[in-house]
C-alpha cells in the first residue's frame, strides 16, 4: 500500500508540474501574442490610407512589408478592401501587389507544419488569383500526406486557374469527395473545360455526374439544355429528376407532350420537379393535368401543383374553383392555402 501511495503522489506531483509549466508557457505566449496583435493593428492604421489610394486610384507607392507583423497587417487590409471595393480595377491592383510582396511569404506558409496555416495560404492565393504559385500548388497536390481538406481546395484552385490538367486531376479523386465538393470545382471551371466534362459525362462516377447536371441548372448553362433533354429519356429516375430540376431553374420551355410524360411518372419526385418546371413556364395545355395533381397522394406534389396553378395567368380563378368544387378535402385545403399566398403577394 505504501509503495502505491508514493507512486501515486509522484504521479500527481509530476502532472501538476507539467500542467503548471504548460500554463506558464501559455500565459507568456498570450502576453506576447497580445503585443504582436497590437503591433499589427498599428501597422494596419499606418497602411490603411496608402493602401486605399493605391487600390482605388492606383496612384500611390506601397512600401514593401518587412516584418511578419507588417505582412499580416497588409494582407488583412487587402482582404478587407477586396470585400468592400470589389471591382475589376481594384482586384487587378490587389493581385499585382500580392504578387509583388506576398509570394515568398505564402510559399513558406504552404509548407507550414500546421494545417490551419496551409489552408489560410491556399484561401489567400485563391482570393487574389496568384497564378505565379501554380507550380508550388502542383507540387503540393502530389504529396502523399495531403489532407482531404487541402485536396478539395487545391482542385478548386486548379479549376479556377484553368489548369490544363484539371480534367486528369478530377479522375484521380477518391471516395471522400462529395457532390458538394464537385459542384464547387465545377462552378469555377471555364466554359471550355465544362464542355469537356459534359462530353465525357458517362465516364465520370455518379457523384460527378449528378454535380454536372445540378451545375448546368444553377449556373444557367443554356448551351447544355439539349444534353439535359437527352437525360430526360434516361432509364434511371434520378437523372430524369435532376435534369427536370435543372430545366426548371433555367425555365426552359419544354414542350407539353414531353412534360406530360413526367407529370404522370410513378416516381413522385419526378412529378414534383416537372411541376416545378410548369410553375416557371406556365404551359396552358397542362392545366387539367396539374389540377389532377392537386389531389396527388404525396403532400409536396399537391403543394407544388397548387403553386404551379397559381402561377398561371388565371391562377387565382383556377384555385378558387378547386377550393369550391373539388371532391378532395386535401385538394381544397391546399388550394385555399395557395390562394391566400397568392393574394398576399398581389
Amino acid at each position: 500500500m505504501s509503495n502505491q501511495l508514493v507512486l501515486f503522489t509522484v504521479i500527481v506531483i509530476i502532472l501538476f508540474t507539467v500542467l503548471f509549466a504548460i500554463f506558464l508557457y501559455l500565459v507568456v505566449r498570450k502576453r506576447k501574442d497580445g503585443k504582436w496583435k497590437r503591433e499589427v493593428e498599428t501597422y494596419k492604421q499606418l497602411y490603411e490610407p496608402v493602401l486605399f489610394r493605391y487600390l482605388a486610384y492606383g496612384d500611390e507607392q506601397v512600401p514593401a512589408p518587412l516584418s511578419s507583423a507588417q505582412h499580416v497587417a497588409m494582407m488583412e487590409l487587402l482582404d478587407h478592401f477586396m470585400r468592400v471595393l470589389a471591382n475589376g480595377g481594384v482586384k487587378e491592383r490587389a493581385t499585382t501587389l500580392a504578387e509583388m510582396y506576398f509570394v515568398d511569404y505564402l510559399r513558406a506558409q504552404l509548407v507550414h507544419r500546421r494545417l490551419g496555416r496551409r489552408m489560410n495560404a491556399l484561401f489567400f492565393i485563391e482570393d487574389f488569383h496568384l497564378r505565379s504559385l501554380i507550380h508550388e500548388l502542383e507540387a503540393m497536390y502530389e504529396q502523399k500526406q495531403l489532407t482531404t481538406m487541402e485536396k478539395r481546395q487545391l482542385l478548386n484552385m486548379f479549376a479556377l486557374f484553368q489548369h490544363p490538367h484539371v480534367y486528369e486531376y478530377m479522375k484521380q479523386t477518391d471516395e471522400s469527395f462529395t457532390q458538394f465538393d464537385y459542384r464547387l470545382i465545377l462552378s469555377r471551371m471555364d466554359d471550355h473545360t465544362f464542355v469537356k466534362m459534359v462530353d465525357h459525362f458517362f465516364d465520370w462516377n455518379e457523384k460527378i455526374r449528378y454535380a454536372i447536371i445540378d451545375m448546368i441548372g444553377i449556373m444557367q448553362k443554356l448551351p447544355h439544355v439539349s444534353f439535359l433533354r437527352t437525360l430526360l429519356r434516361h432509364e434511371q429516375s434520378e437523372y430524369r429528376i435532376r435534369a427536370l430540376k435543372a430545366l426548371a431553374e433555367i425555365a426552359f420551355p419544354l414542350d407539353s407532350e414531353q412534360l406530360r410524360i413526367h407529370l404522370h411518372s410513378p416516381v413522385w419526385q419526378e412529378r414534383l420537379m416537372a411541376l416545378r418546371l410548369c410553375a416557371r413556364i406556365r404551359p396552358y395545355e397542362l392545366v387539367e393535368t396539374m389540377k389532377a395533381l392537386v389531389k396527388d397522394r404525396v403532400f409536396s406534389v399537391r403543394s407544388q401543383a397548387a403553386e404551379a396553378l397559381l402561377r398561371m395567368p388565371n391562377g387565382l380563378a383556377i384555385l378558387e374553383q378547386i377550393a369550391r368544387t373539388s371532391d378532395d378535402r386535401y385538394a381544397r385545403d391546399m388550394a385555399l392555402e395557395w390562394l391566400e399566398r397568392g393574394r398576399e403577394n398581389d
Partner: protein
Amino acid sequence: MIKLAAMFVFFFMIAVILFYTFLLVVSFIQLRRMYELDEWEPYEEMLDVSYTKPVSILVPAYNEEAGIFATVRSLLSIEYPEYEIVVINDGSTDDTLERLKKDFDLIPIKRVIREQLKTKRVRAVYRSRKFSHLFVIDKENGGKADALNAGINFSTYPYVCSIDGDSVIERRAFLKVMKPIVDSDEDVIASGGSVRIANGCDIEKGEVVRIGLSRQPLVIMQVIEYLRAFLMGRIGLSRHNLLLIVSGAFGVFSKQWVIRAGGYAHTVGEDMELVVRLHRLIKESKTNKKIVYVPDPVCWTEAPESMTDLRKQRRRWHRGLFESLWLHRRMWFNPRYGSIGLVSMPYFLLIEFLGPVVELLGYILIIVSLILGDIYIEFAILLFLVSVLYGSIFSMAAVLLEEWTVRKFSSVSDVVRLFFYSLTETLWYRPLTVLWRCEGIVDALLKRKGWGEMKRKGVSK
C-alpha cells in the same frame, strides 16, 4: 470492508481516468490541426443559396413574454441564406402571444399543416407582416416536446433546429453547424454546436460583443465544466461517431430522420433522447449516417448563479440522463448497436450516470478513514489523490486545451483565473455537484416529477 470499498473506488476511477485521457488526446489532436484556421473563409461558399440547405428554426415558448422578443430579434439577424423562424406558443398563460402579435405585426394565415407527428391541437397560425419568414403557431399546452413536434409539422424546410428561450446564437452559428451536413452530401443527419456560458460576457442586440468571465466562483466553475464537457468529451466522442448528446441548447437535425424516429418524446432531456433514438435508427436501418459536433462556440446561454438554481438544474439533468438511458436499455452492451451499444451507452451509464455514486462513496470513505485514523489514513490520502486527478487535473487540462487551441478568452487574467479555479475543483465544487447528481438519481428512482424553472435575469442588454 473499507479496504475493499476503497480499492473498488480506486480502480473505478483509474479506469475512468484512462478513458478521459484517451478523449483528451483525441480532442487535442483534432483541435490543434485546425488551430489558426481563418474564421470566415471556409464558410464563405455556404452563403450561396444554391449550395446550402434551408433551415427551419423552432422556438418553443411557454410563458416567455419577457425574453421572447430578444430571442426572435437575434434570430432575425443571423447570417444564413435561407431560413424561417417558427415560434410555437405552447398555450402560454401570460402575454407571450399578445407580445409577439404586437411586436412583429402578426396576421393570421391559412396553412395546411401536414400532421406527420401527433400533437395537441393547433389553434391558429400567424405570419409577421414585417418579416415574411417569421411564423407563430398558437397551440394548446402540451409541453416542450409537443411544441417542437408541432413546429416540425408546420416547418417547410428539410432541416430543423430548436432553440431555447434565453440563449444567444452567434450570427454565423448556422453556417458553422450546417457545414458538416452540406459537406457530407447529407450523410450527417444531426450536427450540434458548442455551448458556452454567457454570464460575464457583454451582449448587445443579441450578439456577443466581448467575451469575458464572470466574477462569481459558481459561474466560473460552470465555465470550466462546460469547457471540459464540450472541448474534451464531445469532440473525442464525435470523432468516432459515439456522440450521444448533440447539445442542450443548439443542434440542427434532418427533419426527415427526426420524423422517422418519431419526433421529440416527452422526457426531461428531449434532445439527448432524440439523439439516442437517431443512433438506434441508424444502426437498425443499417445506414452510414452520422451525428457530429462542431467545436466552435456558437451558442451562449445563461448559467444559474445561485446554489439553489444550480442544484435544481443538475438534479433535472441527471434525471433526464437516466430517462434516456432507461428508455433505451436494450442498447446497453448490445453488439447489435455497434460502438454505440458497446462504448457510448456503457460510458454514459457507468461513468456519467453512476460515476457520481462512486465518487460520493469515495468522499465518504475519505471522511470515514480520517475518523478511523491509523492505517486508514493511507486510504484517505490515496483516494484524495485519485479524486484530484479525476476532478482538478482534467479540468485544468481542459482550460489549457482551450487556451492552446480555441482561444476565445482575450484577456490573460481570465485564463489565469480559470486555471486557478480549476485547481480548487476537487475541494468544493465537485463534491457539491456529485451530491446533487446523486439526488437526481434518487429523484429518478422515486419517479419524482416537476421541477422549478430557474429564474432568468436575461442575458441581453
